[in-house]
């Protein structure tokens, strides 16, 4: 490939990078995206999407097993893990092809190779270690994402000790599974394998599962997981993993200081992420980082002129939709527009375990810590007609308002389909609606969304259905 000059070069084609490339192209900028693995990045290929495909299978299995609740029984329900995994891979491939189409449609040049910054405005691209091309660009967007974090004593071996990547393509359903870390990734895999019949143990170093969630929601989640048969060890840490011929032995330090040995078939490491900044040439250019993550301003600019960064390589939250939104802001900034900066507090987080968890804004604890006098609304699924009809009577919608101004500070939900509901509160928060507009909104009946209304009403002592 001959050397080329572009207005914008994007390094990485995940949900940050490919969106930035499309938006830049839409704005009339000559754009190239350089990707070393797959268009769509982790999200489409090894993250959000294929896990959702697996979890959908788990959900259907779960429902089928509950058949008698709905008036039928399935005899000899057979689960074919190979086919479940195959479906997940097909879904991922289809979406990755979709990204290729979008690149073509928007006339974005795609270079298959590994990029590193040679100088300001200059990228060297290699493929399999050989120099492929030099790309010149006035503006360079770093969107290289992140990968699973490991520790010296917690190293994946790809056989028995997995990261998300091996966990996505399991060759068998392990009889016993140890999941280290109970953030979104750990809990989703725990939930998936639990549904398939594994005996799952989750070890979490913090004092509760899903530690970023509101404590009340976190508590309800733990109850639900334990009721499904999971063992949850919080305040605990895995001190050592010893992989043998017939399994892995984990030495676990429990909350009370005691040590426990646990034999398990497989281990999934889900103890956080590290940004992909190695070999990018950041140090040579003097790019400012904070604990490995690139520091950017509200418009995604780094401290180096003409160099931008978006997504997991930058500050948290490390979510695909945050990366995509930063991509828009970044491309528009480059095009000379003045987009509104991202408000990290108004980004919803979704976890697709069973039951689902979704939240936005401040937790109750955080709201109090910030000095808000608050009103809290709660509405349980069992008070909602649609939830009962669906056979999903477990769950809670919790809302937190500033008592003085009526500002919606946060919303936290657990239960069926809450990941699809949370956007309603995101719109409300972005539009700076108060409790008055939310109360005045007519929510359609019968829907789960009515609980969102009732929760607001409850915060003001006006709840109807409990």
């Amino acid at each position: 490939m001959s050397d080329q000059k572009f207005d914008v070069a994007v390094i990485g084609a995940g949900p940050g990078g490919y969106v930035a490339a499309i938006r830049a192209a839409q704005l009339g900028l000559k754009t190239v995206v350089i990707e070393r693995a797959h268009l769509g990045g982790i999200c489409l290929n090894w993250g959000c999407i294929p896990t959702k495909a697996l979890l959908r299978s788990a959900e259907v299995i779960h429902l089928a097993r509950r058949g008698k609740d709905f008036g039928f029984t399935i005899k000899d329900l057979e689960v074919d893990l190979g086919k479940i995994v195959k479906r997940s891979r097909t879904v991922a491939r289809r979406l990755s092809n979709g990204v290729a189409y979008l690149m073509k449609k928007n006339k974005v040049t795609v270079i298959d190779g590994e990029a590193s910054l040679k100088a300001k405005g200059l990228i060297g691209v290699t493929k399999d270690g050989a120099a492929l091309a030099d790309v010149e660009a006035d503006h360079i967007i770093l969107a290289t994402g992140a990968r699973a974090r490991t520790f010296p004593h917690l190293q994946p071996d790809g056989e028995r000790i997995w990261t998300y990547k091996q966990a996505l393509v399991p060759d068998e359903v392990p009889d016993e599974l140890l999941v280290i870390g109970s953030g979104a990734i750990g809990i989703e895999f725990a939930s998936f394998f639990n549904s398939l019949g594994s005996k799952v143990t989750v070890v979490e170093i913090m004092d509760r599962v899903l530690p970023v969630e509101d404590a009340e929601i976190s508590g309800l989640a733990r109850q639900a997981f334990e009721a499904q048969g999971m063992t949850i060890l919080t305040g605990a840490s895995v001190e050592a993993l010893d992989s043998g011929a017939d399994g892995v032995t984990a030495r676990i330090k429990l909350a009370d200081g005691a040590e426990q040995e646990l034999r398990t078939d497989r281990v999934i490491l889900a103890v956080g992420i590290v940004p992909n900044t190695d070999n990018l040439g950041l140090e040579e250019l003097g790019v400012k980082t904070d604990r490995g993550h690139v520091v950017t301003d509200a418009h995604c600019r780094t401290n180096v002129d003409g160099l931008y960064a978006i997504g997991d390589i930058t500050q948290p939250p490390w979510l695909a939709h945050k990366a995509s939104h930063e991509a828009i802001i970044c491309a528009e900034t480059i095009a000379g527009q003045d987009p509104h900066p991202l408000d990290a507090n108004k980004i919803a987080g979704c976890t697709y375990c069973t039951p689902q968890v979704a939240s936005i804004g401040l937790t109750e604890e955080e709201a109090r810590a910030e000095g808000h006098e608050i009103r809290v609304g709660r509405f349980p699924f069992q008070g909602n007609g649609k939830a009962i009809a669906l056979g999903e009577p477990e769950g809670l919608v919790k809302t937190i308002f500033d008592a003085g101004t009526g500002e919606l500070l946060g919303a936290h939900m657990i239960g069926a389909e809450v990941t699809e509901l949370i956007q309603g509160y995101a719109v409300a928060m972005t539009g700076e609606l108060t409790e008055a507009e939310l109360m005045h909104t007519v929510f359609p009946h019968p829907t789960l969304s009515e609980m969102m209304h009732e929760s607001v009403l409850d915060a003001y002592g006006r709840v109807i259905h409990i």
Partner: protein
Amino acid sequence: MPISILMPALSPTMETGKLAGWNVKEGEHVAPGDVIAEIETDKATMEVEAVEEGRLARILIEAGTEGVAVNTPIALLLEEGEDESALEGFDTQAPAAPAKDKPAEEKPAEDKPAEVKPTEAAAPAPAPAKPAEEAGARLFASPLARRMAAQNEIDLAQLQGSGPGGRIVKADIEAAMRTGAPKAAPAAASAPAAAAPAPAPMDPNRITALYEPGSFTEVALDNMRATIARRLTEAKRDVPHYYLSVDCQIDTLLGARKRLNERLEDGRISVNDFIIRAAALALIRVPDANAAFAGDRLLKFKHADISMAVAIEGGLITPIIRKADTKSLAEIAAESKQLAEKAKTRKLQPQEYEGGSFSVSNLGMFGIKNFTAVINPPQAAIMAVGAGEKRAVVAADGSLSAATMMTVTLSCDHRVIDGALGARLLAEFKTFIEDPVMMLA
């Protein structure tokens, strides 16, 4: 795909109109320029011409339908080679805008360079006919920002919004609280930004109930009547009117008019033509009064475009003598005659009655001695002209004599024309009217 023929906007302010009639039938061929329908607005009846060639396949809005919104599809045209099947499933409600406008619309607004200043975005210029809305200009602020402003007695109108489109958001209120905000007047604080709603008109049914059934007939408001009702209510409610009257002696004018009319080969010059020219020249001499109120600014005109009120069947309309200050009496006479004719047959084009910098309303021919008129917004003044009549006049030396006097009353918008300015305008007018030879200067 069939082409939708849309209800045209005959003027920038037109919202709805009556589809008065169809000049072609379904199935007939039309060529560009053919008159296919007649549209009646509050002001005029206008012809709709075909833009495209084709066959008028379907009439969607029947002749005689009132209140047809602008851009509603009114008929479907099939192009050469298309047959009726093309109409199937074609949603008649479909495109709200002409197809050719679509590409521009589809382009997201955000693609335009964000150059709009927040203040401009916050107060989009309303249609010129509605200064009322300008007075209480719509203010864009999030509900949370409104509440916080009210709680902290911050005047939202003084803030510049930093949100999308200049919307005032929480961060702006917090910034204002930090920097010492412009405080709202205590009275305003309780009702942030929301202007007090206009008192609702009485329920029509309650009004009819006041009268004995059968003692009246009901006449539905036509477009013109509805527009007069709305516009003049707005004007009288929202424009701070005040009135100035002056008596003008017009014997000299009448003599001059007589001599002119004896010598002119065609056409006659009316007293009203003199008044129009005198008003135009007075406005040029007092340019500060030759202005319109536009919410956050005044528009000062370079010429005097005089709207003359013409009574027509079912209402009135005000065609405009453009640049009357540059026209001779004979030109004004010819033009006013022609415009009055067109007004009476409802053939005025919108550009012939929209705009104008000043109005003249003359009820002298009905023997009215004097009256006050309602300002025609956004104009800042209207002159009400009474009858010329013989009156006893006391001269400076105390002697009595008979003279032909005419009383004119100027209604002024105090937002534009203060009392002294209005008085100067009227004095200049009087000078021209009483000594019409000055109009030759």
